[in-house]
């Protein structure tokens, strides 16, 4: 029972949306159909951009060394970092949530909080394709003034954010027992390991972590969990010690 409750809590958002639709279909079936039709456009938008963003993010994660990210987007990057962030956000495509996995990866590799905020914000409002559209409907003058003001605003509030939010406030590695370690930077919270070996793994803040244990580890089950992890985030340092 507690398990079901926990699961519900973890997916609260999804549950709310589903209930919203059920309510809608009961009260006004017509509007329910309309809502699903309205969602259609966004599904298309998501499918057009998200797969490629995930692949690009993973490839950059693999090939771009930490030093490079730190040099261009780290705390010491100053003006250069701000410019690079604006360019990255400005030439992007897709809605703001497309920027989330990309920015998480950059932060993990040493980009500063300030530059992350700049990328996210410029991704949202000052994208080039958007500007052309804006000129069409609202005129060049409107667009230019709004663009300049928005850039200034982003520079100011990204600075405020960096004063208020520290690197430690962003999610990172959860403390684990030394011998079996889950790299929580890599963990995507798929909870596969907790299903394979529920006695050993549990979900905490939507990331998997190792429970306190004092029983004999079932090596088969553990190996299954390690092999099953889609991001190979689980490392068993215990095994290495035995083989030595």
């Amino acid at each position, binding site marked *: 029972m507690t398990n079901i409750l926990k699961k519900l809590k973890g*997916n609260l*958002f*999804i549950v709310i*949306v589903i209930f*919203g639709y059920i309510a809608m279909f009961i009260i006004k079936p017509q509007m329910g159909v309309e*809502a699903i*039709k*309205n*969602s259609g456009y*966004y*599904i298309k*938008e998501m499918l*057009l*951009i*998200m797969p490629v*963003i*995930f*692949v*690009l*993010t*993973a490839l950059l*994660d*693999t090939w771009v060394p930490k030093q490079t990210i730190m040099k261009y987007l780290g705390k010491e990057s100053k003006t250069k970092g701000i410019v690079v962030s604006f360019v990255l956000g400005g030439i992007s*495509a897709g809605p*703001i*949530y497309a920027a*989330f*996995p990309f*920015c*998480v990866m950059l*932060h993990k590799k040493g980009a500063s909080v300030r530059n992350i*905020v700049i990328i996210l*914000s410029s991704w949202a*409002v000052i*994208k*080039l*394709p958007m500007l052309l*559209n804006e000129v*069409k*409907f*609202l005129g060049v*003058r*409107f667009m230019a*003034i*709004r663009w300049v003001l*928005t850039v200034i*605003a982003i520079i*100011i*509030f990204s600075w*405020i*954010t960096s004063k208020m*939010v520290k690197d430690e*406030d*962003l*999610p990172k590695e959860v403390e684990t027992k030394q011998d079996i370690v889950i790299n929580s930077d*890599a963990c*995507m919270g*798929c909870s596969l390991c907790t299903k394979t070996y529920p006695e050993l793994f549990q979900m905490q803040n939507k990331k998997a972590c190792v429970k306190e244990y004092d029983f004999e580890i079932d090596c088969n089950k553990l190996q299954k969990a390690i092999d099953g992890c*889609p*991001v190979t985030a689980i490392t068993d340092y215990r095994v290495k010690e035995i083989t030595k």
Partner: protein
Amino acid sequence: MDIFTMAIWILTAGFCIYSFVKDKDKTKKSLKMAFGMGKGMLGSILSIVFLIGLILTILPPEQISEFVEKQNLYLATFVSAAFGTITLIPAFIAFPLVGTLVDAGVGIVPSVAFLTTLTMVGIVTFPLEEKEFGTKFAIVRNTLSFAFAIIIALVMGVII
């Protein structure tokens, strides 16, 4: 597909081929990682998408603009900014809509407030942002974006 989305696809495809030539194993691992990321975010993103559809049905943008047209400047600004925070509307719908608002005499200030919060602040995307960046980051970023959206709008009202 707009040209920028296309450019990202082409760039990524090229990168992928380059990566594959350079190191097959690393590329496979990256693709697996990308797949894992997608799986991890799929539930949240689908919820966001369907929630937007639901909100747009209950509160169609046309109805909001009708309401805003009749209000005084400050209320209109606040209502448009607030409406902008809930939903994400694609630019090609948002700009004509804002254009109509301006033409209808609503004024620059509410229109700009709407435009900015529309894209930068997301109540709908908040759960996802919180999961990826932590609660504090998500709250600070969204609050500041909202405040500055109003400031941008007010300054624009003075300039134009």
